[in-house]
């Protein structure tokens, strides 16, 4: 069978299984481009059973499937090794069960975060995650890629905020893991495994989320120091104290500039949310601390704009110079090494390009943008930045880059020894490696 014949057969099989109007080809399918690869067909299931049916078709012939939420973060990972079908879950966007007094919600994976938050907001609650590009991102995508933002400082990350899932496996079988209640100790908690598996272990259909009350008040303070160390010192003291910030973000000058903070130097952003008086008291404590440490502190006016900028950094604002090679990356070090890491990366890439970095001080999570004038310089910069973080015991992962550059970059970096079990798990879950093949962990070679 030729490639063309095989493609025609696939499209026919999908149309037969799901109905013609649920299957896109040609230009419609081209919209699902991932890192240079385009699928033969895009499938838009109307219900869970359609997802199973589409997977069964792909599984039979060992075709490559890319699960698709809002498409906001499809640039993560390596390019797919094989890409035949895009599985777009946008129609699976119902709130399945929501009882505010239980502080849990069960939602289908294709619901957009913004729509979910609006629904929960009506009952004074929210799902306390603020990943980048939240206007497009879906709950399924956020869980699959384990995306969190600055609010993880207080609320934890995806693994702490998902209680249960329903998953369609590579062969179309649907199973569940976890539960719909806030506490559960029944057999293996596979919810944790699916979170951050980048769709390589199954397609998320439904998730039960742990919710939080929306705080009555939220205010933020901007601390400016002569050095990032000075800001980091303040952050460490705050995090070791009884204060309960919801954001503690260290920004280098370029990042602060990009987030629209005037006269930026090294900056620490601290915010508190909750009862008005408690927020005020904590703000006062932070100002006192800043004075003691010789930092300049001021309350942020109209902070919503800053929260959004921080949440989307480094994804937005994108570079205006289209010729420029821009690489977005994330990394981690021990929280105590945040400032050191910010310096080390800046020093390491000097000569290759410029960086802008933000660090979530509570967790040692760095996110940054590297700009270079040529792809060679960008690649060298990424390698140097990775080396700098590795020297501190940390790591670096590439999140986005121009497509041509991506082929030359090591996206995930060195693999730990434990990857051998991860590969076996991948094989046990997806024997034919049809789900996001090549993009993340692959089956045992």
């Amino acid at each position, binding site marked *: 069978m030729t490639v063309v014949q095989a493609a025609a057969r696939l499209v026919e099989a999908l149309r037969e299984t799901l109905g013609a109007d649920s299957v896109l080809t040609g230009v419609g399918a081209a919209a699902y481009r991932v890192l240079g690869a385009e699928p033969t067909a895009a499938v838009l299931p109307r219900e869970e059973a359609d997802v199973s049916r589409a997977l069964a078709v792909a599984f039979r012939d060992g075709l490559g499937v890319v699960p698709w939420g809002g498409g906001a973060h499809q640039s993560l990972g390596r390019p797919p090794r094989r890409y035949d079908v895009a599985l777009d879950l946008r129609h699976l966007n119902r709130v399945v069960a929501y*009882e505010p*007094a*239980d*502080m*849990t919600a069960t939602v289908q994976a294709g619901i957009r975060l913004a729509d979910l938050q609006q629904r929960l907001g009506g009952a*004074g609650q929210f799902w306390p995650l603020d990943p980048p590009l939240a206007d497009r991102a879906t709950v399924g995508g956020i869980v699959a890629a*384990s995306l969190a933002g600055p609010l993880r400082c207080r609320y*934890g*990350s995806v*693994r*702490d905020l998902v209680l249960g899932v329903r998953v369609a496996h590579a062969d179309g*079988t649907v*199973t*569940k*893991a976890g539960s*719909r*209640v*806030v*506490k*559960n*100790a*029944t*057999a*293996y908690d*596979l919810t*944790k*495994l699916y*979170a*951050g*598996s980048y769709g390589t272990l199954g397609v998320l259909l439904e998730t039960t989320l742990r919710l*939080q*009350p929306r705080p009555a008040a939220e205010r933020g303070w901007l601390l400016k120091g002569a050095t990032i160390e000075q800001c980091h010192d303040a952050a460490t003291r705050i995090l*070791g*104290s*009884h*204060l*309960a910030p919801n954001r503690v973000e260290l920004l280098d000058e370029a990042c602060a500039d990009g987030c629209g903070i005037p006269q930026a130097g090294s900056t620490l952003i601290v915010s508190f949310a*909750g009862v008005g*008086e*408690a927020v005020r*008291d904590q703000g006062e404590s932070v100002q006192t601390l800043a004075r003691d440490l010789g930092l300049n502190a001021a309350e942020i006016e109209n902070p919503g704009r800053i929260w959004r900028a921080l949440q989307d950094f480094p994804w937005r604002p994108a570079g205006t110079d289209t010729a420029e090679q821009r690489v977005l990356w994330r990394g*981690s*070090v*021990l*929280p*105590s090494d945040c400032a050191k890491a910010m310096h080390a990366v800046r020093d390491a890439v000097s000569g290759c390009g410029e960086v802008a970095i933000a660090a979530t001080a509570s967790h*040692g999570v760095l996110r940054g943008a590297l700009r270079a004038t040529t792809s060679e310089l960008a690649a060298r910069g990424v390698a140097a930045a990775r080396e700098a973080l590795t020297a501190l*015991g940390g*790591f670096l*992962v590439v999140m986005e880059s121009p497509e041509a550059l991506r082929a030359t970059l090591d996206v995930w*970096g060195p693999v*730990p*020894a*434990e*990857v051998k*079990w991860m590969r076996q*798990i*991948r094989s046990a879950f997806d024997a034919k490696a049809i789900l996001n093949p090549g993009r*993340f*962990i692959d089956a045992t070679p």
Partner: protein
Amino acid sequence: MTPAARDRLAQTFREIVGDDGVISSPDELRVYECDALTTHHRAMPDLVVLPGGTDQVAAVVRRCANEDVPIVPRGAGTGLSGGAIPVRGGVLIVLTRMDRILDVDAANRTATVEAGCVNLAINRAVIPRGFFFAPDPASQQASTIGGNVAENAGGPHCLKYGATTNHVVGARVVLPDGEIAAFGGRLADRPGYDLMGVFVGSEGTLGICTEVTVRLLPLPQAVKTLLAVFRTIDDASNAVSEIIARGIIPVALEMIDQETTRAVEAYAKAGYPLDAGAVLLIELEGLQAEIATEAVEVETACRANACLDLKVARSEAERTLLWKGRKSAAGAFGRMTRNYYHQDAVVPRTKLAAVLREIAAIGERYGVRVPNVFHAGDGNIHPLLCYDARVPGQFERAMAAGDEIMRCCIRAGGTVSGEHGIGIEKRDYLRLMYSDEDLAVMRRIQTVLDPRGRCNPGKIFPEMGYAEVRA
């Protein structure tokens, strides 16, 4: 295992851990035939080994792998689901000698301890430095962190802070073939599948953790403890729902029913009213200004649900006394009944009142008293099925009532365990929650990490019939 094979193995282990680290005499082995689950099944291990470090654990495990002998990890033996009962015999690896605190890192808010370190010992080490470890199972004075990890232990304070899984970042694990692995670690978001997340709650079936790195939280500024008295359990349950619905997440929200209140009072003299249908012990923790506001909300929610009386602890001594009542519940059980079976299940908080009514009806139907003292805030109930083993039929009736209670919790949308785990106790209830396909997917992890099924065999998954478990 033949006596000769056993002697040979014992000799090898003595060479690894020293003479005093191996137990082989039947009299001494009998101590290890069960854990805190005493109602179901007992089984003697062939040998007990007490290693002193990760390398010794690995050497013992490798030897067992070579001989194809089952291994069963055990901490303090306080588990309530039978996870440490060696139902297939084999070698019980007891980690209590590995109780060192290896590192407390204030700047990164983590502590690394050996698996045999007692839960409370972590707090003793870190509280003077301004931090605490949040999971606080009732067994915390005895239970080890390794056991807490195995069972994903909870406790009253989980309501605000989450269970063990939310506070463990990494572990050193000896896999069933003796290889030493590092699951998780102190770096956030390292790419890769969350093996640490799957290991927590795997009940010793995927390997033996020997070192655990936990997350520490800064001590709160203030604590406020309240005792609310209600005429009925219904009123108390509705108050629980209303507190949560108002957006208040207390650090603990415990319910104690009338029968337990009376027994506890006779024993602990905590000042609990004897005529109340139920009392709620409510603790708020955090910033002074925050909990002051929250206390007002809690009071409003209680008053709106016909609260008879509301006490606020005015001093640390008063607070300790209020908690003494709750913490004495386990000790009071012995006064309430000759024998008991302590259950664990979770229901959605909004179903609490209805489920508790149904439990009372089930108790009546079977002629079994079912007092209940539990973590109401997260819907985690602990019905205590009372019986007298000397009276024929009572045990069977208690078990049958327990069975119905589990089914009732599942019908309400809950789970069959919130913090005790499955072990051998709940294996057959797992099918009420999960399909065979769901369970088969879980077992894929086992096929990768323990392909020969030698690590704590017979636990969690329903493979043996109920009759066999009860034999």
